[in-house]
């Protein structure tokens, strides 16, 4: 594995009574697309801000590109914050030039045009930002974050508010960044996107890291304790059946989680006794399921 681009060791940050990040360790390898999942208020944005040196940890080390000192943001890093913000009166090209020059890119015009074309925004280059739709403004904001050819792009919820077509466009743009050798760290609520796109992902919950690894690896770690079924009578209540710990209903099929050591064969027999079984699969849990197990309302206070 390549030298880590980001290395965090025992990092804590407190705001008043609220411990936003609690003893976080993190290692992001170079050239990877690294997903960052977790519910709202779990410390994702605080972590991103510490990597960007917008705020500073109370305890621990944040090393970016081998450097753990410094106050000002690194020009090799690009940042798309969760809360979008653009100068509304500026023209798109002018705004992107401003952001590129602020990051030290000297002749940004060709790069700006290339990105605008890639994202289908070329004809809007000389329009003011306030004339853009929300989705277009978000793509402009993305360009502002990556136009200076960063080696590390930190994207907070890059897909939120985009339609499926534009989500695809943005996903391709992120792959393009990785193709150029950049490391992409992005946070999302969209587990399917994370599962498809990430080389590696991490889940943070209540300021602590609760998951870290490649998606397949994580699913395996949570074991083959998930049963996916499609039944003749979809309205059947399955929660009382032998060995069943939890039921998730997805309309077309149901996902059951078994207690440790419960026998799937016993469950199958019970189901056949109740209704017709169209589909029965012993599967790895989806990321979504893992996410809900940890962060769902029923999750214990100390999930780890």
């Amino acid at each position, binding site marked *: 594995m390549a030298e880590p681009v980001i290395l965090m060791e025992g990092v804590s940050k407190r705001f008043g009574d609220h411990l936003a990040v609690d003893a976080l360790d993190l290692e992001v390898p170079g050239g990877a697309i690294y997903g960052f999942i977790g519910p709202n208020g779990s410390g994702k944005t605080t972590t991103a*801000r510490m990597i*960007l040196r*917008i*705020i500073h940890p109370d305890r621990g080390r944040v090393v970016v590109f081998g450097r753990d000192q*410094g*106050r*000002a*943001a690194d*020009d090799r*890093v*690009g*940042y798309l*914050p969760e*809360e*979008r*913000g*653009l*100068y*509304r*009166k*500026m023209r798109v090209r002018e705004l992107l030039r*401003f*952001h590129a*020059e*602020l*990051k*030290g890119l000297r002749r940004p015009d060709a790069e700006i045009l290339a990105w605008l074309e890639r994202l289908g925004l070329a004809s809007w280059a000389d329009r003011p930002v306030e004339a853009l739709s929300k989705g277009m403004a978000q793509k402009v*904001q993305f360009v*502002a*974050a990556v136009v200076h050819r960063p080696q590390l792009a*930190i994207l907070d919820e890059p897909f939120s508010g985009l339609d499926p077509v534009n989500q695809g466009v943005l996903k391709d743009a992120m792959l393009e960044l990785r193709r150029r050798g950049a490391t992409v760290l992005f946070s999302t609520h969209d587990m399917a996107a994370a599962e498809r796109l990430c080389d590696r992902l991490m889940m943070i919950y209540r300021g602590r890291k609760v998951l870290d690894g490649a998606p397949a690896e994580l699913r395996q770690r949570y074991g083959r304790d998930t049963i996916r079924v499609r039944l003749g009578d979809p309205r059947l209540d399955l929660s009382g059946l032998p060995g069943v710990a939890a039921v998730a209903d997805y309309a077309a099929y149901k996902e059951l989680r078994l207690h440790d050591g419960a026998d799937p064969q016993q469950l199958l027999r019970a189901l056949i006794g109740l209704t017709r079984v169209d589909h029965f699969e012993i599967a790895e849990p989806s990321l979504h399921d893992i996410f809900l197990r940890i962060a769902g309302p029923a999750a214990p206070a100390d999930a780890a």
Partner: protein
Amino acid sequence: MHRDRHLRKIAVIARREYLATVRTRSFLLAVLLMPALIVGSVAVQTWLARRGASEDKTVVVFDHSGALIDGLEAAAAARGAEGAAAPDGDERGRSRFTVVRGDPADLDDELRLALSARIRGGELAAFVEIGARILEAEPPGPSTMIAYHAESLAFSELRRWLEQTARQRVLQRRLLAAGIAEPAIERALAPVVFEGSGLLSRGADGQLQRTDAAQAIAAEFAPLALLFLLFNAILLTAQPALQAVIEEKQQRIAEVLLGSVAPFDLMLGKLLGYVLASLTVLVVYLLAAGGLAQHYGLLGLLAPALIAWVVAYVAVAVLLYGAIFVAIGAAVNDLKESQNLMLPAMLVIMAPLFVWSEVVAEPLGQLATGLSLFPMVTPLIMPMRLAVTGAVPMWQPALGLMLTALTALLVVVAAGRIFRVGILAYGKAPTLRELARWALLKG
């Protein structure tokens, strides 16, 4: 971190902020407004003066004493003839007055009401009642008074003319009654000429030079004009600074910027942009003033040393006030919340507007000297003193500039700390005590 990288980022921020400030329509409007107001008011006055010529005014006079009416009639006729004799020039601006004789015996409240109605209708300009014992001056009361009834009392040329003419006639008749010969009275009542004149100086050719009256009057108004010019140049950019920061915070632009630039550099870049914008305004104003001064031959009022001081003071003033406004903008959530914090700041900045007459009257006095060395108001008071008199010792503007620059530095550092904390803090607006705590927070 390399220093030139900091400087480059500051420059990029400053350029954007400068363009964003200067390009707005409201800025352009405000810059053009002041010269337009000055030119406009001159033009309107000239136009009004010309227009006034065609407006003749009729006044009805009820003379209970019977002693003045002939004289007033004659004076009005003479005034009209004088105006007609001089068809060009200033005299054209005078309106013709007609005195109509009213019968005092008819005068009752009904007639007074009727006359008032005719005045309101624009048919008459005024009516006058002259008391029966006007020449005796005793006893005090309606019989020894002249009552002037009109809609406009304060700024009426007719009233001034009537008052002056009637007084002259009354004095003449009283002196005559006291047994003084008429030629002696004429001589005694001849007007006394009192003219304001400037100081003398010796020119390069050894000739004695006099300041002409127009220049002397202009010199008296120059400090006030300068005060408003400075005030405008500073507030035109320092105040939008507050709104700009609030917008950056509300629109979450600040966080994007902080991903690229350190908070202190961001603030410094913004302040430099505002300084440049203010100096742009100042240059526009100075060019306009220079043009006017040249046109009227008053170029002497714009001494190069004074201009140099003014430029330096505007620069530090924008740094000082701009830093305060930027810090307030970063601390609050919206414009409404900023009002509480703005009030004390604005009071300090406006203070010179309340004491300017004192400063102009006694530019070397204790109050003027003391105020001009008090950093928060130095940038406005000191140039005013320099404009009034050349006798301010050179160390005073120099010391004032140093003290203000030092204060600006302290305020910028404190504001930078408030900015750093405030720009990412949402929720309840901080109290003054919390602001002070932020300002003292290091690292």
